[in-house]
């Protein structure tokens, strides 16, 4: 039986790779809000619309619309920013947002209280500091977490670098962000712009990756869709033990959804990392629940009732990923011995 696809899925489908009517929404001076459909799309650009709940009723009586503002979140793998970037972000928070800069549990930075009129200038300023907000929210790969302190050892630096590269690799391909916020021209032949990794409707739900370097597991690697536990041999990075299907998401009162630990599926060398990540992501993309009844909690393919056999769809995608790319066949070795919290 086919259930109708959810509203958000329809919005994504019609959005021309996340463009929607965001431009028109930003240009509408009569409201501090963006159009309803665009509220789903702007998340993929690293922002979402909020309103001050405490003022809602008061403003309704005042015949004023709710006090809308926007949260903006950075894509900063491992939460690493340079001192110069930090100062730039701090200044942006003072100038365009409510003055605060929040550090999130996913190692991102958040601005709050940015009004629509200042949204574009704020995103331009953030990008000018060489940080972007692409895919910081929405149904895509989110900010990649790393427990490694990059200055602790060369191996730690290497793990952080893999996380950064993976984050870059899994970034949506659409040029929408650059057109809408950074005033870049639409690339010639833009009609042919494709999303080879995500497809036109992106993921059914958000997707989370974390890297841990034993013995520390402060990123909670098994609570992620994809967990990568670095295996260091005599100080050198040998590869990663890969876990899949973890997640904390659960919808209250819905027994179909519950938190689940990720399960180890084997060991991967660094050169296998992108292919594996793509395969896991594609599994969520193609097996995830996109129906209207989806409560948008964890995806069924990686968690929930089918979680115990999740290795099957992942391995199917590993072989498909192989046939599509020119990499060597991906055959995961057995997971190596490791000691991290949660094992």
């Amino acid at each position, binding site marked *: 039986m086919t259930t109708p696809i959810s509203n958000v899925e329809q919005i994504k489908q019609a959005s021309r790779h996340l463009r929607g009517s965001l431009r028109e929404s930003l240009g509408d*001076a*009569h409201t*501090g809000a963006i159009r309803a459909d665009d509220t789903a799309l702007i998340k993929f650009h690293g922002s979402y619309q909020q309103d001050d709940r405490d*003022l809602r009723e008061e*403003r309704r009586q*005042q*015949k*004023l619309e709710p*006090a809308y503002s926007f949260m903006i979140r950075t894509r900063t793998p491992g939460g690493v920013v340079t001192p110069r970037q930090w100062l730039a972000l701090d200044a942006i928070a003072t100038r365009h947002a409510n003055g605060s800069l929040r550090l999130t549990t996913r190692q991102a930075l958040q601005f709050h209280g940015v009004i629509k*009129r200042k949204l574009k200038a704020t995103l331009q300023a953030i990008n000018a500091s060489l940080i972007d907000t692409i895919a910081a929210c929405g149904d895509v790969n989110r900010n990649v977490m790393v427990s490694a302190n990059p200055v602790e050892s060369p191996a730690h630096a290497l793990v952080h670098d893999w996380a950064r590269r993976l984050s870059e690799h899994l970034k949506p391909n659409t040029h929408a962000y650059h057109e809408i916020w950074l005033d870049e021209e639409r690339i010639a032949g833009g009609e042919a712009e494709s999303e080879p990794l995500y497809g036109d409707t992106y993921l059914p739900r958000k997707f989370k990756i974390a890297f841990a370097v034993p013995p520390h597991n402060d990123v909670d690697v098994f609570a992620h869709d994809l967990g990568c536990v670095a295996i260091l041999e005599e100080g050198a990075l040998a590869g990663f033990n890969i876990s899949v299907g973890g997640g904390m998401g659960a919808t209250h009162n819905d027994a179909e959804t519950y938190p689940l630990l990720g399960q180890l599926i084997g060991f991967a060398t660094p050169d296998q990392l992108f292919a594996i990540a793509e395969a896991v992501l594609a599994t969520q993309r193609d097996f995830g629940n996109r129906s209207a009844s989806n409560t948008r909690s964890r995806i069924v393919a990686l968690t929930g009732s089918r979680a115990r056999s999740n290795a099957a769809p992942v391995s199917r995608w590993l072989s498909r990923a192989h046939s599509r790319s020119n990499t060597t066949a991906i055959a995961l070795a057995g997971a190596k011995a490791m000691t991290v919290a949660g094992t």
Partner: protein
Amino acid sequence: MSAQIHTPAQLPIAGEKGIQLARLVDGLDPQALWWLSGYSAGLASKLQPQALAPAVAPTQALAPITVLYASQTGNARRVAERLAADIESAGSAVRLLRADAYARRELKDERLLYIVISTQGEGDPPDDARTLVEYLAGKRAMPLPGVRFAVLGLGDSSYPQFNAVARKLDARLAELGAERLFALGEADLDIETIADPWRRQALDHAIESTPAATPCASVVPLRAVATTPRHDRDAPFAAELLANQRISARDSEKDVRHLELSLHGSGLEYEPGDALGVWPRNATALVYSVLDLLALDGDAAISHGGETHPLRHWLQVRRELTRIGRPFLARHAALAGNAGLNHLLATGQSAALATLLGSHQLPDVLRAWRADWGAEELVDALRPLTPRLYSIASSRKLVGEEAHLTVAHVEYQAFGHRHQGVASGYLADAGDETRIAVFIERNERFRLPADDSRDIIMIGAGTGIAPYRAFVQERAARGASGRNWLLFGNPRFHSDFLYQVEWQEALREGRLHRLDLAFSRDQASKIHVQQRLRENSRQLLDWLGNGAHLYVCGDATRMARDVEDTLLEVFAGHANGDRAQAAGKLELLRQEGRYARDVY
């Protein structure tokens, strides 16, 4: 179900015909009975057409059944949708409406009304029903005789305020004279347990009440006999204050109020563009400070111009205390024997004098330059209190016997004391029990085009938006085909976008066709309405070329002047820079009644 009708003794049909009638209707089902009533009404109207024709008013073309819902999470909507679908498939006309899309003036015309409404956590209605629920709970709610209704509440019994909204609504509708068809349904989280039987009942009543054939009857409205005395400036009407709502946000520098006054029973009628005259009262604190400063007895009886009142009364309702004139200041200077003040008056330093008169209320003068005033001479010297005029912000076609005002509350600190404008302070402080003395001040020069197909351009700043609210309401009610363009300016978008939600709705629904906004303080350089005019000069000329009427309302000294300069500039730009030609064009517009100003 069959009819059992006993012929009442007082039936106008007696004897044989009466018996035949009883026989005829015996055993007929409701549909047949409805058809019969329509049939006989049709016969009656043919026999006596002249008796009905002149007085017949078109009745509201409402569907016979209305299903109204208010939903936070969609459950109430779903139940309402199912009910409406059921009724429709049973062959009855029904309309399904969300509470915030419901025109509450239609309530009294409803025949069969079903309401499905949820109750939120602390006993609150869903957002989309707040306005309606507030209205119904309020004292303004109209009586609803002839309305039959039933209410279904959706709630969660784990909260103490289980179905509180539905309960109140159900009780209130009955209180207003509507007839409850069957008991309130109170659904819990297992909605269907209660909702399904409630829906079945509702459906049964819907089917029963639907006539098989549209009865050929007309409603003859009873025209109220105009026996109430006419009210005017000298005999103002004591209007009940229905609403006193601040409409500038809490962080605004201005306190702007939306006031709704009841004109019920006054016989007062106004047209869009007219003003409401308000007879203010000076604040009690202000009266006391004058009495204290002069050590005068408020109870002392003072006669002036053939009238005798206690001094307190003279000061509170008969004399200006917030505005002083030059004659008063001259007498004060003489009494005070103050050289500086006398010099100021004598040397004709008009600018300095104007500043003084514009900034000082009576207590400020009394504090600055001590003088001994007697009660009689004080009453004699002060200016008589005059009413203040406010452009009416409503159309009677929409609000009925009400008048709405948009009032900027003038309130500030000066000379170490709180100051208020006499009327705006009086109105802003007015509570539920206050009766405001009002009258209508006609403003024939600020009228909508008689031709509804003409476009209108409305330029306003601050409370100058008031008459445009009336214009847009009126044009929508009239079904005017001309376009409405509003240009509005105020300090900040976030806090000073007066009636924002209403304008958004008007745009969505096609009652307003263009809206250009100028918020002066939202950016480094100030932007005013005239800049928007300049930016849109091509459209402005197009609209005017098309016969549009142009209106300007608001501050006279800056806004209206700047707008006029800009109009001349735009016209001149169109006439190769010829200022004289531009001035001629503006003058022509004025003569044609297409350039109207309401400035203050």
